[in-house]
């Protein structure tokens, strides 16, 4: 079923690996590490900002992930698709806090022309924004440097049941197939004389039907075909083979953990636990410790933040 594009010779981008979000060179330093290490790195960057209120540290984490992307030779141009999100999230968050700052007599009003904003909730929002960005970039880092296969190997190495890892991997692949189908259906629409620019609103709704019906029909048919194929390959979804043993896992044997992997994991785990303890034991990363917050407090004549 060669859809829209006939790939020349079928083999494109031999020197690049297609990741979930883009391409990374085969010799990217990331691939020297075991998928499990990379997954743990993802968990670290994606979760550690939860412990951290201070925007300075979260900002540093964003810079850190970008440096890692550069080091991993990922295609930074792909990050452009996140720009609208990054900007609109900021607009949304600040708009909400300016329009609905809450009613607290301890807040410090700041008058900018006709507008009154309150310092404390705005700074809190500023900090939250960077926390969100830090987590977001952690996610981006993982998805733009790992393929489905890496993710599956990592999940299976961590003893996730085969069925679960299969569903996760296949659903990502399925998403790709639907995007392809979607494009072809759009072309087919156009070939039948549909001019989108001339559509009324009611017809726009109808347009959804035109996309969705074939999309779902194809999915249903595909579900049948794939389940037949799985049957023909002796698959049963318990993950057990005939004599009751677990199915063997050949692909996992292609990867081995090295000393470097263990070192990186140890460092990340230590930092992670350390951050958790520092925050929940000692409140180390709370806003009163934020240098910018302290500076602004002094500029506004508020003394030390508490």
């Amino acid at each position, binding site marked *: 079923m060669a859809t829209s594009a006939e790939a020349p010779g079928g083999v494109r981008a031999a020197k690049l690996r297609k990741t979930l979000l883009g391409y990374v060179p085969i010799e990217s330093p990331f691939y020297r590490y075991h998928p499990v290490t990379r997954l743990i790195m993802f968990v670290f960057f994606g979760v550690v900002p939860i412990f951290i209120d201070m925007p300075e540290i979260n900002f540093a984490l964003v810079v850190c992930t970008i440096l890692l992307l550069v080091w991993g030779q990922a295609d930074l141009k792909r990050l452009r698709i996140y720009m609208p999100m990054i900007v609109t999230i900021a607009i949304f968050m600040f708009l909400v806090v300016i329009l609905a700052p809450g009613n607290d007599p301890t807040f410090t009003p700041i008058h900018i022309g006709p507008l009154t904003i309150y310092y404390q909730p705005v700074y809190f929002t500023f900090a939250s924004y960077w926390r969100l960005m830090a987590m977001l970039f952690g996610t981006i880092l993982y998805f733009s440097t790992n393929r489905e296969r890496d993710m599956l190997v990592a999940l299976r190495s961590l003893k996730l049941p085969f069925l679960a890892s299969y569903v996760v991997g296949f659903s990502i692949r399925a998403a790709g197939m639907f995007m392809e189908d979607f494009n072809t259906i759009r072309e087919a629409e156009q070939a039948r004389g549909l001019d989108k620019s001339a559509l009324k609103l009611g017809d726009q709704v109808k347009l959804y039907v035109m996309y969705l019906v074939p999309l779902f029909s194809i999915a249903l048919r595909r579900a049948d075909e794939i389940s037949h194929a799985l049957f023909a*390959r*002796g698959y049963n979804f318990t993950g057990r083979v005939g004599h009751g043993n677990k*199915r063997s896992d050949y692909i996992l*044997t292609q990867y081995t953990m090295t000393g470097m992997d263990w070192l990186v994991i140890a460092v990340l785990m230590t930092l992670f636990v350390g951050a958790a303890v520092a925050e929940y034991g000692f409140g180390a990363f709370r806003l009163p410790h934020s240098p910018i917050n302290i500076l602004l407090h002094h500029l506004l004549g508020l003394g030390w933040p508490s």
Partner: protein
Amino acid sequence: MTNAVVIKDLEWKYEHTTQFALRGINLEIPENTFLGIVGANEQGKTTLINSICGLIPHSFNGVYRGSVEIYGSPVLKMSGLEIATQVGLVFADPEAQFTAMTVEEELVFGLENTGYDLGKIKERLDWAVGVTMIGDLLDKSPYDISGGQKQRMAIACVLAMNPPIIIMDEPTSMIDPLGKQFIFDILRKLKDAGDRTIIVVEHNIEQLAPLADQLLLMQDGQIARMAPPAHFFDDLPNIVGSGVYPPEVTSFAYWLKQSGYVPPEQVLPNRFDEGVTLMQDALRNARDNR
């Protein structure tokens, strides 16, 4: 000779349909032979092979009568895994059978399901990759390779499991000429090895006939004809009437025979070289006789 497949009085009707798709099939396929199945669409070709590989009745709902036995075991009573170790099935659309994210994973998927140890898996993987010539594709996504490569990979997946019976359902219908040639080369290798029962449904009779030990014509849910290729086309108009077009050299040879340029006892050729030889001889004889 042992029979790999024995079908007795098989009848099958799909759920939501009114007519039986298979009506009274009786068939014995001897071990290590090559059976080519031809026929127009919707005549029961795919249904027949689906019932040999157990998809019918295990994955379809419907009415099932009669029996299909693989090396003496009734398909009805075998588990999916038991059947998969005996019968490998290659579908027409290779893309519909992908289950994994790289070619290599795809190839070992069935092996992992059968519980081979890792050494054995590696061994079988290497062999299947060699036969189908896809060694350079292992690291790629099955979706990023050409149609012909996809189909070769699909065959490799089945070969890797090393089933004694291999069934292919129109393995070349979606691919280009070069891709087709590769597939028939693989079929030739498998046939020459002689240690496997091969069943192939194919519209491309030109390439199928020279490989097959027997050709089987499905029509209206029944076996309308079964014969070795040399005699399968004896009643050529009827074959054409059933919607199956013989190789062009066979059609021409039939005309030569009908027109008296070759003797009535002449066996119709189905291979290109045989056809050319016959045509050349006929031409020479006809001119000599004038």
